[in-house]
């Protein structure tokens, strides 16, 4: 599998603060890559470096097999559609006039613009000033601007930010269908839930570091689900020196792997503790994500 984006030790420091720390990203071709991290973890900064809008303090970026820097960015820009931070668009102009500016700026044809507008289903609103757009419409106009050049790679920074569930669903379907057509989509979010169902590969950022990169399944395997032990005599289990939390079913034990679980069962039998049930609780991906990035959120 070839990679559309690779970075080696990508780092950005503002003064003495390192906001992006030694990232080795690998974005496979033709997938939706979910780039996750809490607020301030460095997602936007990373994406700006990928587009060479921000100069890395250290490290290399290579996009579509070529090094990305301020010398090559102009040629590569033709192949990359992007949406960084807030959606672009001149408020005093209509959607159509905005698209005309993009068309001139990038030397596109009318057809390309029309297709992009149709794809994001904004056709009926093209004659309204962008100022009067809803946030969802602005996001879609931004995506249309990114799509118009028929890019091989889309880099979208929180494209679902501020959208209602139906809008998120729509963008999700759109991005998935683009990926099916072979476009590589890198999409960031601070909510796992938003990218969970469209991304086939996830990269998770915490305080500027890449804490995880891989498929959804691999992310699940990363964490050991809690064990619930149903017993009418939880005190006796606690007397065995196990660290557990009392719940209404009995006890909840975390961090026990397969061997430790087998050992636990042996000890319970040995001490003749009545066990009504023992099972693992599947955690939601959101919880796994929260565990990885830390519940305190902001760094």
């Amino acid at each position, binding site marked *: 599998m070839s990679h559309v984006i690779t970075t080696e030790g990508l780092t950005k420091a503002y003064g003495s603060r390192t906001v992006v720390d030694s990232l080795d990203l690998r974005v496979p071709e033709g997938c939706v890559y979910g780039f996750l991290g809490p607020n301030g973890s460095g997602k936007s900064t990373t994406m*700006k470096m990928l*587009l060479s*809008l*921000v*100069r890395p303090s250290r490290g290399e970026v290579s996009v579509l097999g070529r090094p990305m820097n301020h010398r090559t*960015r*102009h040629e590569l*820009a033709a192949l*990359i559609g*992007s949406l*960084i*931070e*807030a*959606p*672009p*668009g*001149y*408020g*005093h*102009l209509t959607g159509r*006039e905005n698209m*005309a*500016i*993009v068309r*001139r*700026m*990038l030397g596109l044809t009318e057809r390309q613009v029309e297709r992009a507008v149709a794809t994001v289903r904004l056709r009926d609103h093209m004659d309204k*000033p*962008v100022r009067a757009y809803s946030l969802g419409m602005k996001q879609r106009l931004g995506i249309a*601007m990114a799509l118009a050049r028929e890019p091989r790679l889309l880099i979208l920074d929180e494209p679902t930010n501020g959208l209602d569930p139906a809008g998120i669903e729509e963008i999700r379907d759109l991005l998935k269908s683009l990926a099916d057509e072979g476009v590589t989509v890198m999409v960031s979010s601070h909510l796992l839930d938003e990218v969970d169902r469209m991304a086939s590969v996830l990269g998770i950022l915490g305080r500027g570091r890449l804490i995880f990169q891989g498929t959804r399944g691999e992310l699940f395997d990363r964490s050991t689900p809690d064990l619930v032990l149903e017993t009418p005599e939880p005190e006796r289990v606690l007397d065995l020196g196990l660290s557990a939390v009392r719940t209404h079913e009995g006890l909840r034990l975390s961090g026990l792997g397969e061997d430790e679980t087998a050992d636990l069962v042996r000890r319970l039998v040995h001490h003749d503790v009545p066990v009504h049930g023992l099972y693992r609780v599947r955690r939601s991906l959101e919880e796994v994500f929260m565990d990885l990035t830390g519940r305190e959120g902001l760094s």
Partner: protein
Amino acid sequence: MRMAVGLEVHKTRRLRVWVLCLVMVVAVVALSGMNLFSESAREGFADPAAQPWEALLLGQVMIAAMTSPVLVAVLAGRQVDIEHQGQGWFMARVAGLGPGLLCRAKAVVLGVALTFTAVAQCVLLIAAGMVAGIEVTLPITLWARYGLCLLLVDLALLGLHLWLAARVDNQLVGLGVGLLGAFYAVYALLMPTWVAYVLPWGYYAAISPVAVEGDRFVESAPVPWAFALFLCASAALFLGACRRLDRAEGGPA
């Protein structure tokens, strides 16, 4: 650059650049031409010693000094603010157009608008004088020189304001600077000559083609080398600042 200028023209749609310029022209012509219709002024229309044209010209200098700094600040602010509001810097950067190039293109488009404004001011005011019935010969070269100097000062300050508007995204700052500049320009007209050369806005006074000496008007002109230095320095600073904006990362602010 040509493409960037074309884009700017498209962006000026609905920004009411022309309306603003027109309002300024009307304001200048109306305010400086007010005296034309007073009885005392009319008496001197046929008398060269009363210098009716010079009086009218000095009126324009005064009103233009008051209004031009504000017009320049407002035009620059509006044309740049749309980039801040609409994420235009990033959009252009990704397409290979740096913020400095955008600023230069804006300078071209607004420069054209200011040219029309300066020319229209002079032409309409002269026309108003003729309609009112001034019979003395028109000091046409004096007036043309003033019009040209006014335009040059406008352009110099346009560069400054474009840069300021790009660097400081709160456009009230630029407007405030423009207002203070207007005060200063008028103040410089009333103060000793050297005051006009201290701040850029003073040049609105320095370029005055007429001065009052005793009870009559005499011809006046800016100190040529100082004026030339001011214009060259403004152009060099603006172009240098644009290059820096192009080289820096991200947006200009």
